[in-house]
């Protein structure tokens, strides 16, 4: 067992699933009596949690023993990892295919292209590779990386046990049926499909409804501009772009939601599905990427592109109490599985 396990990240931000996992891992490692620091580039670290990370420029100048490199996009962290002369563990969180970003942000599309190009060299340089879903592991196996272990995303359901923000509760809890999506406003999330379906739902089935979209709108401003224009074109009322919100406001969004819908076309895992389950909200997700693994034998998975069908599905899941209860019971069982996970023991076994 090493005495010190550091973590390298391409970015460190509140509300980001990878950063959240890095924090949980750090707490666990400290609990096991190990030293552990998080390193991330200063320019991609958000000020609110900057005190929890060290600048990546300091990494190669400090004592090293083992390092976990969270990989999802090429950055200066990749170079630090490759220069690191200690036990190297690659934590693979998936790379968004570049075609989603092409046209919306060519610079990011190029960066994603480079990231995928570097994936083999990075994964093959690791003494161990941990993928957070079978879906991600398969991508690595396709590149002939053999030593891949599937280690689901580290997450404590207790981490989101936060008192909901009263202002947000008041804002969203005014009797309308709220349909919720949480995630970055990025093209792979396919938010427009949800907006189109919501339009059918609102205009033909429930005029007293609201679509709540929570997540950073600065990940891809051109995509966000398209979504805003789409809301105007469709003449939708009650589409609420909440942007990035803090943990308490996010808890209020979940508390007031009748249904959580994720039509994403590409996800490595999708933590918001689990968060929604923790708040007793039925989850509807596309059967795609790592999402089926995240929800296990619970929730609703769909496959199809017709917005009318998705609208009818949303209506059934909101109105059919029997169906809803069956889904919520299964989701509770899934959460029990996640609660039963012994993260410290798992970490000790992985590192020893």
């Amino acid at each position, binding site marked *: 067992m090493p005495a010190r396990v550091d973590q390298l990240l391409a970015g460190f931000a509140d509300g980001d699933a990878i950063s959240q996992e890095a924090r949980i891992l750090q707490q666990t490692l400290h609990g096991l009596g190990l030293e552990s620091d998080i390193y991330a580039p200063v320019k991609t670290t958000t000020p609110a949690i900057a005190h929890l990370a060290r600048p990546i420029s300091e990494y190669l100048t400090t004592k090293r023993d083992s390092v976990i490199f969270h990989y999802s996009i090429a950055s200066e962290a990749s170079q630090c990892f490759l220069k690191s002369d200690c036990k190297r563990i690659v934590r693979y969180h998936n790379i968004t295919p570049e075609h989603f970003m*092409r*046209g*919306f*942000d*060519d610079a990011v599309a190029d960066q994603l292209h480079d990231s995928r190009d570097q994936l083999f060299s990075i994964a093959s340089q690791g003494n161990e590779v941990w993928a957070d879903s079978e879906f991600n592991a398969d991508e690595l196996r396709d590149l002939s990386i053999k030593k891949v272990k599937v280690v689901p995303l580290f997450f404590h359901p207790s981490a989101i046990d936060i008192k909901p923000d009263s202002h947000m509760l008041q804002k969203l809890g005014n*009797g309308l049926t709220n349909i919720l999506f949480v995630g970055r406003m990025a*093209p792979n999330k396919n938010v*427009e499909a949800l907006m*189109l379906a919501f*339009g*059918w739902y609102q*205009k*033909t089935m429930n*005029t*007293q409804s609201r679509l709540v979209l929570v997540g950073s709108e600065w990940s891809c401003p*051109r995509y966000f*501009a*398209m979504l805003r*224009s*789409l809301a*105007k*074109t*469709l*003449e939708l*009322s009650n589409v609420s772009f909440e942007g990035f919100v803090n943990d308490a406001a996010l808890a209020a969004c979940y508390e007031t939601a009748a249904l959580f819908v994720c039509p994403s076309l590409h996800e490595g895992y999708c933590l918001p599905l689990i968060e929604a389950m923790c708040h007793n909200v039925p989850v509807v997700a596309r*059967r795609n990427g790592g999402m089926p693994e995240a929800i*296990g*034998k*619970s*929730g*609703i*998975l*769909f*496959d*199809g592109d*017709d*917005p*009318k*069908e998705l*609208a*009818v*599905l949303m209506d*059934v899941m909101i109105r059919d109490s029997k*169906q809803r209860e*069956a*889904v919520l019971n*299964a989701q509770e069982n899934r959460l029990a599985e996640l609660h039963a996970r012994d993260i410290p023991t798992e970490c000790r076994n992985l590192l020893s």
Partner: protein
Amino acid sequence: MKIWINGNDESESLGQDLTKKATTLENEAYASRAQDDSEILSLRNVESNAEYLDRYVKVVRKRQGVNPALYSQPRPPGLKGTISYMIRMFLWRILRYQHFWIAFHQNDINAMHAEVLDFEHQEHNRQISELEGRIKQLEAQINTLQERAH
């Protein structure tokens, strides 16, 4: 529609019911706005930032206006809902002149902004094509000079 509930494939039962019900949904106005090949949704198919900008400027040009016409007001159920609906309709009537006046001026401002954006974009494109033409000309001249030197 293919659907799995709690891990069980229910495409044949619930999935087919959903598909059947979906075909009965009708709203002509919304259907025409939500067409997959609409100008705004076609932004998903662009292949570069430049092409995106080109199309987006056109979208802005067409969708700059605030529509002051009465929009469909949902009527909540029950007596409370009916009263709140009537109050909203009453407020709409007494405020519409002010609303029209504000919308008219807002549309003036929006139109000016959209025009400036469009003119600037056209000018930018014109300058780029002029520069590209000039570069080609210079390259051709360099080639000629190099050939003569050899």
